[in-house]
């Protein structure tokens, strides 16, 4: 094609709006199939299976029913299903990505596995974490946050959590429920207990 000139900049973001459900997360309610579900699980995936769930709230503490979360994570060995990760295991069917629209009460949930340790740019280990992208009506661009696991021994030495003021770290840490492989974390996009979002 003729247009191989260098572009002048990126295409700006616009809100996902209130009506994305039938296109992005139809989940049987519309005449369209889902490209993604809220599960990363595949028959051959290894690692500790778990569920992460919670609610998303706005600045008035009102649950957001038209929010979409996406997660991206490493496998149990800390490798990404992306050929750019040269360490990636070529045979696993695990993709590491999932998408969930919140329900009318603002609830989300993901079925996944606990990711392994991923190095930071200096080679230091990061505690197991998921990346999360948050989309909603009213958000002109999605927000990036992370989800860590409350019972992981690596939290204290995680180099990214170390960038976060100590009194805000809890907003990034999903708490394990007793005896069940279920972790809970609510997201608050604004307010006193506002979730930490990253400038990436």
């Amino acid at each position, binding site marked *: 094609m003729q247009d191989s000139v260098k572009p002048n900049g990126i295409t700006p973001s616009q809100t996902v709006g209130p009506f994305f459900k039938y296109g*992005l997360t139809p989940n049987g309610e519309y005449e369209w199939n889902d490209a993604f579900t809220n599960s990363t699980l595949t028959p051959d995936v290894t690692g500790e299976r778990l569920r992460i769930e919670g609610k998303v709230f706005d600045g008035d503490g009102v649950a957001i029913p038209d929010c979409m979360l996406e997660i991206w994570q490493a496998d149990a060995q800390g490798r*990404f*299903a992306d050929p750019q990760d040269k360490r990636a295991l070529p045979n696993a069917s695990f993709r*590491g990505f999932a998408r969930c629209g919140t329900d009318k009460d603002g609830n989300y949930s993901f079925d996944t596995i606990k990711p392994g340790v991923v190095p930071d740019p200096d080679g230091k280990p990061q505690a197991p974490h998921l990346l999360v992208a948050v989309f909603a009506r009213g958000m002109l661009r999605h927000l990036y946050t992370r989800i860590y696991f409350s019972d992981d021994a690596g939290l204290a030495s995680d180099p990214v959590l170390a960038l976060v003021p100590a009194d805000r770290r809890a907003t990034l840490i999903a708490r394990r429920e007793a005896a069940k492989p279920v972790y809970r974390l609510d997201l608050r996009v604004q307010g006193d207990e506002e979730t930490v*979002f990253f400038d990436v």
Partner: protein
Amino acid sequence: MTFIYPVDSNKAHPLPLSPDYKSSIKRAPHKPLIPMRHTLSELTGPVYGHETVREGDNDLTLQHKGEPLGERIIVHGHVFDEDGRGVPNSLVEIWQANACGRYVHVRDQHPAPLDPNFTGAGRTQSDAAGYYRFVTIKPGAYPWGNHHNAWRPAHIHLSVFGHSFVTRLVTQMYFPGDPLFAFDPIFNSVPDEKARMRMVSSFDLDNTQPEWALCYRFDIVLRGKNATPMENT
């Protein structure tokens, strides 16, 4: 192996709080975003193959028994990175209102007719050069409750992946010369005029199909990697 995505590119995006867009007031963080270096987690991203996209998913006019009402159009272009390289195999998802400006979404209350032959959702994957193509109908403008007599300019919603989780983009494609641009707080939430105009498609007469469909070109530009490769880990 991996590369650094300059954070400066993000300046083209709207600020989270754009008070003229009322829904942003309670849904924008008040605390500053925390800067961090990209790690492997940020630099990698989901890879989706052809099994995600079915034959015909890029033609929104063929999903029902009959053809939808409205002006049939071709929307095509490239997914590029900021350095002008085509982004291959990128998943592009779209959703839109019908020709009357009505969404099939249950919460759309606009008293305009639904079209039994139009859902308004599609997806495709860019080819090896980054090229993508949809066939659809031109969506109508629609009213919304943001302020008195508020109307959204006609637009198609797009969701694009690219090479990494930080190139993820959700945006809206507009049509050239829309008289509603000046009055739309979502369109105008992008502060820089040049950046704003990058959301407007161009009329593409050369690729119009005579006797069948008009054509609009829309190139999608994702964040690019600069030339400093990270060390292999």
